[in-house]
C-alpha cells in the first residue's frame, strides 16, 4: 500500500532519536516507487494529504530533536514561547515528495526584558535556527536556494521584529520585498502556538486593507510566469535540453494558479495559508462563483497529484527535476486535464492582472 501513515508509523517518527533516522523513515514513507504505474492524476490526488502529514510530522520531530540537541550542548531550553513557521508549499500544505526548506521562527519577547536579556534570547533562536536547518538538511530537506530558512536573520525574530520587517517591506515594495511579503502570506505555524504569530498576521491584514498600490506590486511580482500553452490550445513542451518533451508543471501551471488564488484571497481579506482553504472561502464569501471555484479546485487537486510523480520521470530524482513532467508518461485524460488547467491558469492570470484596477475602483 503506497504512502500511508499508520499510528505505528507515527510512533516511529515521534521516537526517532536522530536526523539520520528521520531521513531513513522519510525515504521509506515517501517512497515514490509504488506510484510508478499510476499515470492518471485522479488516482494520485488523494495521496497529497498523507504526503503532507508525513512531512509535517518529520519536520516537527526535527524541531524537537533540535531543541533537545541545544539542551544537551548546554545552551539551554527555549527561553520564551516560540513558533516554527512553514512558508512556500509547506505553508500551503502542498508539498511534493521531494521538498526543500522554506521556514522561519517567531518568538515572544516579554516586555520587561532588558537589552542583555533580549540579546540572549536572540542568540538562542539563532542557534536553534541553525540547528534546525542543519538537522532538516540531514533529514532530507535541502535549504531553499533563496535562503528562506530560519537561520537567516530575515526569517527569524521576535513578534515586534516581524511586524517591523513586514512594514518595511510593505513601505518599499520593490520586487524582492514584494516577494518576501508573498512568502510571508503563506506562513503556517507548524510548531508552537498559532497565537504568537497572530499579531503579525493582523498587522499584515491592516497593511493590505485599501492599499491598492501594494496590492498592484504583489500582483505584478507573479504574473511573469509563462503558461506553456500555444496557438489552438497546443501544449508546448521543452524542445531541447535536459527536459525535452516535458512541461514545467511547477512554474507553468501550478504556481500561476497558486498565485492567483492567493492574490484574490489577500485582496478580499482572506488570511489562511492553504490554496484549497482560500478557495473554499472565496466560494463561501461569493467572491467567485461556486461552479468556477469547483472547476479550479478539481484541477488544482489533480495538479497536486501530478506533482507527486514528477520526480519519477527523471533518473536523477533531484529537487530540480521535481518541476517537470514528461507528457509522454501521462494518460490521455490527464494530458487533457493539464491542458484545461493551463487554460484556467491563463484565465486566472488575466483576471488577476485586472484585480488592482478593480480594487482601486
Amino acid at each position, binding site marked *: 500500500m503506497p504512502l500511508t501513515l499508520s499510528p505505528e508509523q507515527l510512533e516511529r517518527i515521534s521516537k526517532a532519536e536522530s536526523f539520520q533516522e528521520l531521513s531513513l523513515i522519510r525515504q521509506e514513507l515517501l517512497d515514490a516507487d509504488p506510484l510508478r504505474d499510476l499515470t492518471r492524476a485522479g488516482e494520485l490526488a488523494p495521496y497529497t494529504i498523507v504526503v503532507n502529514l508525513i512531512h509535517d510530522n518529520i519536520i516537527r520531530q526535527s524541531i524537537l530533536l533540535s531543541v533537545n540537541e541545544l539542551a544537551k550542548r548546554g545552551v539551554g531550553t527555549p527561553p520564551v514561547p516560540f513558533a516554527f513557521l512553514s512558508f512556500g508549499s509547506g505553508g500551503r500544505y502542498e508539498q511534493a515528495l521531494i521538498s526543500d526548506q522554506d521556514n522561519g521562527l517567531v518568538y515572544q519577547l516579554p516586555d520587561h526584558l532588558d537589552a542583555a536579556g533580549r540579546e540572549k534570547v536572540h542568540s538562542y533562536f539563532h542557534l536553534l535556527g541553525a540547528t534546525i536547518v542543519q538537522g532538516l538538511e540531514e533529514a532530507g530537506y535541502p535549504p531553499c536556494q533563496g535562503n528562506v530558512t530560519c537561520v537567516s536573520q530575515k526569517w527569524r525574530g521576535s513578534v515586534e521584529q516581524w511586524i517591523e520587517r513586514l512594514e518595511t517591506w510593505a513601505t518599499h515594495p520593490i520586487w524582492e520585498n514584494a516577494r518576501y511579503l508573498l512568502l510571508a502570506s503563506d506562513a503556517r505555524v507548524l510548531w508552537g502556538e498559532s497565537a504568537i504569530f497572530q499579531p503579525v498576521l493582523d498587522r499584515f491584514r491592516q497593511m493590505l486593507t485599501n492599499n491598492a498600490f501594494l496590492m498592484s506590486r504583489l500582483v505584478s511580482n507573479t504574473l511573469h510566469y509563462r503558461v506553456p500553452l500555444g496557438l489552438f490550445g497546443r501544449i508546448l513542451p521543452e524542445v*531541447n535540453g535536459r527536459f525535452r518533451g516535458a512541461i514545467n508543471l511547477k512554474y507553468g501551471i501550478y504556481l500561476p494558479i497558486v498565485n492567483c488564488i492567493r492574490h484574490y484571497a489577500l485582496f478580499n481579506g482572506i488570511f489562511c495559508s492553504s490554496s484549497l482553504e482560500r478557495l473554499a472561502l472565496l466560494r463561501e464569501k461569493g467572491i467567485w462563483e461556486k461552479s468556477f471555484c469547483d472547476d479550479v479546485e478539481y484541477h488544482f487537486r489533480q495538479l497536486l497529484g501530478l506533482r507527486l510523480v514528477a520526480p519519477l520521470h527523471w533518473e536523477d530524482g533531484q529537487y530540480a527535476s521535481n518541476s517537470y513532467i514528461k507528457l509522454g508518461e501521462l494518460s490521455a485524460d490527464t494530458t487533457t486535464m493539464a491542458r484545461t488547467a493551463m487554460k484556467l491558469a491563463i484565465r486566472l492570470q488575466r483576471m488577476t492582472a485586472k484585480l488592482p484596477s478593480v480594487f482601486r475602483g
Partner: protein
Amino acid sequence: MEPTLAQLSSAIDATWVMVSAILVILMQVGFALLEAGSTRMKNAGHVAGKTVLTFGICSIAFWALGFGLTFGDGNSFLGLSGFFFDGNSTDSFSAFSAATVPISILFLFQLAFCAVSLAIAWGGFAERAKLSIYFIFSVLFTVLIYPVVGHWVWGGGWLAQLGMQDFAGSTVVHLQGAIVALVATILLKPRLGKYNRDGSSNLIPGHNQVYSVLGVLFLWIGWFGFNAGSTLGSTSGFFGYIAMTTNLATAAGAVAALAISWIVMGKADIPSMLNGVLAALVAITASCAFVDPWAAVLIGAVSGILTFYTSIWFDRIGIDDPIFAFSVHGVAGIWGTLSTGLFATPELAEKVGVGGAGLFYGGGFHQLGVQALGLAGAIAYVFVISYIILSVLKATIGLRVTEEEEVVGLDLSEHGGYGYPELLQPERVHPTATAKTSASHTLT
C-alpha cells in the same frame, strides 16, 4: 591628361569592389563575436582570437596556391596556374576576363570569401579542438578543399559550363564550410557534458547573447559586400537590386524564425532568431541576383523556419554543433542553391548571364536539375576530402584537447591565460602580506 569615361567607370567599379572586399573581411568581426558569444566564457579568448590567426594563415595560403587553384586557368576540375600571385598579371586568369576591376582587388575580394568559408567550418570545431589543428587545417582547407568547388562553379569548371547559378556562394562558400563543420563535429564528438546517459541533451548556452547579436549584425552588414559586391562592378547599378533582395530575405528570416520559436516553444527565442537571420542570408546568397523581391521574402522566411527545426533535430540525433554551423550554413545553403532553380526569372538570368529560368518561371526542371547536380557534386567532394583529411589528423596528431584541458577551458590550456581574467582568476589580496606576495595571482 583628363581621365576617359572608361577609366572613370573602371575606377568606380574598382572602388565598389574594394569596399565590398572590406565589408566581407568585416564579416570576420561578426564571426568572432557570434562564435565567442555562443560559447562559454572559459573559451572566449581562444574562440575569438583564433579568427585572427586563421585569417592570417588563410591569406598567405590563398595567395600562394588557393587563388591559382580556384581561378587560374587549368581544366574543368581545378585551376593549375597563377600560383604565388604577383598582384598584376591577368594572363593566367581568364575567369576574370570580363572584369574591369584591377585583379589585385579581385584577389582581396575572393580571399575574403575563402576566409568566410573557413570561419564557418570552425563552428564545428568549437570549444574542443587543439590549437595546432587550426594552424594545419587552415592551410589544407585553403589549398585542398575550397579551391576545387570554387573552380567548378566560378573558375570556369564543369558546373560553370553547365550554368549553375550560385551568385555569391551559397554552395561555394557556405555549404562547403558547413560540411567541413559537420564532419569535424562528428569526428570530434560532442563536448563534455552535452549529452546524458539516457541520450538526452543539455543546453550549453553561450556566455554573451549581446556579442552574438552584434556578431549577427556585423554579418548582416558585411553581407551587402558579399552579395552586392559579387556584381564585380557598380556602374550598371544592379548591385542595388541585389542589396535589396538580400535585405528582404534577411528580414523575413529574422521574423519567421522568431515567430516559429514562439509558436513551437512558447517563447520568443533570440538565438533562434539569430540563426534565422544567418540562414536567410545564406539562402539568398545564391539567388539574390536571380529572383523577384517576393521570392526573396519567401526564400528568407523558409530558411528561417527550416533552420529552426533542423537545429533541434541535429541536437536530438546526437550531433553537437555548438554554433549550429550545419543547420545555418549547410541546410540553408542547400535550400538557397535549390531556390534559384525554382524562382529564377528569365530576365534576371539573362541579365546575369548564368543559367536560365527556374521551375516556376517556365524554365522546367532544367535549372533545378543543374542546381541539384551541383549540390550533389559539392557535397560529395567536400564530405569525402574533409573526412579523409580530418581522419588522418585525428589518427596522427589528434583533433581534440584532453578532458582536463577541455574542462579548464581552451583559453588557459591553449594560450596560458583567460579571456576574462578578472572573473575567472580572481586576485587574492592578503591584508597582512607584503607588497610582493599580494601582487601574485592564485588560480582557483
